């Protein structure tokens, strides 16, 4: 239901019909998602993985271990947005998490704003990476999503341990969920 808070923000259905894309979920799940705990506190969170980056897939893998639906894309998030993410946000009561480049986060933040969503968690991946950083970041992102969906507190900031440098641009772990005013660190 569109409300005032959703504005600028919300694109309603077109007169001539709603989208009817379906997702071949299995194709998108990195490794361990199916068979996960569907009663998880992290439902209904969707984790997205940019398959261009191993770190992004690791992040989504960790989310999948917690029973979270995952979706993959290869750099260009448009098709995933059209097919899965926009319909999910439009239906409401969902949160998105991911570890992506700044451009993808910018796109999703901008598009999600039309549905009343905002960035509620954002952490830049350390340039030198960190042992298990992606997995810890995933848990924090999931907690931020769960807090948005079900209430509760976000985990405190976490430390990281230096490891081998990665030949990758800056990556950001993030959560997009309802109520942008909860954001501790805006993405833009």
């Amino acid at each position, binding site marked *: 239901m569109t*409300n*005032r808070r959703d*504005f*600028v*923000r*919300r*694109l*309603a259905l*077109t*007169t*001539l*019909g709603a*989208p*009817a*894309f379906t997702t*071949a979920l299995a*194709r998108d799940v990195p490794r361990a998602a199916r068979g996960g705990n569907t009663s998880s506190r992290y439902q209904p969170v969707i984790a997205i993985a*940019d398959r*261009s*980056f191993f770190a992004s897939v690791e992040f989504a893998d960790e989310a999948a271990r917690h029973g979270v639906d995952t979706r993959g*894309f*290869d*750099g*260009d*998030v*448009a*098709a995933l*947005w*059209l*097919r899965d993410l*926009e319909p999910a946000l439009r239906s409401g009561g969902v949160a998105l998490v991911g570890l*992506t*480049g*700044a*451009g*993808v*986060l*910018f*796109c999703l*933040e*901008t*598009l999600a*704003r*039309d549905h009343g969503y905002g960035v509620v968690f954002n952490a830049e991946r350390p340039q030198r990476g960190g042992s298990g950083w992606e997995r810890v970041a995933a848990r924090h992102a999931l907690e931020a999503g769960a807090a948005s969906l079900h209430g509760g507190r976000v985990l405190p900031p976490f430390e990281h341990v230096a490891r081998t440098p990665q030949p*990758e*641009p*800056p990556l950001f772990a993030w959560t997009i969920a309802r109520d942008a*005013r909860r954001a501790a660190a805006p*993405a*833009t």
Partner: protein
Amino acid sequence: MPKPPPGVSERDFQTALRELETIVTKEWLFTSDEDVLLYRDGYSPLWGESEERYASAAVAPTTVEQVQAIVKTANKYGIPLYPVSTGRNLTYGGSAPTYSGSVVVDLKRMNRILSVSERDKTCLVEPGVSYFDMYRYLRTNNIKLWIDTADPGWGGLMGNALDRGGGYTGVDYRDHFDAHCGMEVVLPTGELVRTGMGANPNAKTWQLFKYGMGPWIDGMFSQSSFGIVTKMGFWLMEEPEAALQVSVTVPKRRDIVPLVDTLHSLMCAGTIPSQTTVSSPIMNGSADPELVRLRTSGGASDADWDRYASAQNRPFWNGAWVFYGPPKVIAAQWEHVKDKLAGIADIQFRDTASYTFPLSDEQVEAVPDKARLGIPSLNLFGSRNAPGAQPSEGHIDFSPMVAPHGEDLIALTDVTGKLYGDAGMTPSFVGGMMFHPRTMICFHAVPTFRNADGNQRTRKLFENLVRACGDRGWPIYRIHAAFQPLGMQQFGFNGGSLHRLHETLKDAVDPNGILSIGRYDIWPKRLRGSRA
């Protein structure tokens, strides 16, 4: 509490806001800082400075009648309005008004696809319909028509067309304003007008024949402040049987002359149907000091450049386009093009990708260059495209138009490269893009920042680019809101008679001067001279 627009009393503004609230209900009038700041230009070259433009409020109607009522209220109280459709035109100003204090009329909720005719290959849409919306609608309903999408594809059909944006597919579709057929417009007085055949209440050809009867005035509503367009028809491209994406490379700098001459002829003949881009793998290379020296010297010789290219073992120029149609026809077209270009020594031809339609969802996702197949994409923001780019910083487009002549392209890269060098910045020339068959747009992405020092450098560079190219007969075709007065100065024939005509028209159609004040440097009489 929102601040009233300049020249409007607090009392009148509050009264006007109450009337607007009555029109759209409380839910759809936005006056809090938190809401209104969503209309800020995230890529503003004036970010955080006193000249940055802000809205005072925003209102989001859903019907034409609401738009008319909003306009009437604005006239009553002298409230400046600034309509936006999807507001994602980030490199040209986004949804921020050109005149601070304007009330943004956000048309995003008017997002109905009113009709699509597969038989006639047309559609009629409201302002909030995005390329995503229309693409999804066509796919979902298995309609064998293509949109021609801007790139990135998150904007809207109407807003992009009215700003004269372009795309990549067939010649009848990729000039988005040229591909429109019929409008409905709320004039600044609140009166409703339909253009072309739409002025005949019974016409069955509103989206088929552009002109109707009498002067054709649709152009008045592009890049203008003469009305709020509430409906717009477009021609859609029939899905072809197949497509073949191809490219050519040529080794030497001066090869661009016969290459572009030939491509131009082939496009005018209809043999090459799509948008065609020529770019330089050499000039768009890495930040090699020798490359930077050549690019910023303002006149490195062909011999210098060719030595450099040879040492890099890469071709100097690349050309890319797409053939659409039956496979046999495509094959014949490609052979003909090869024959025409064969005179360029050491030219290389390459089939980049071939497609047979329709594509499955999986095939669509695998297309690397989606816009050329009418598929909206966000690949320009893709993770591999801008390593190190921060979302908090953006760019504005400098987009001079040049004749389809290789000599002009070379001269332009010399002139702009020198200006970038003088500014201590790396040239960002992308290439010559033939959206229109008889011109090239030579895009440069000029970076903007979230700090005044960086933006001051950007503004100085941008102004120098506009002036230098204007002086040489390469004016821009479209420009960020902050630079529209400078842009219009480049069209100053006969002491600015075109600009005077624009303002004469403004006085006639918008006597109270309430709509899109200052857009493309068109000011209402009461503000002329102040140029706020």
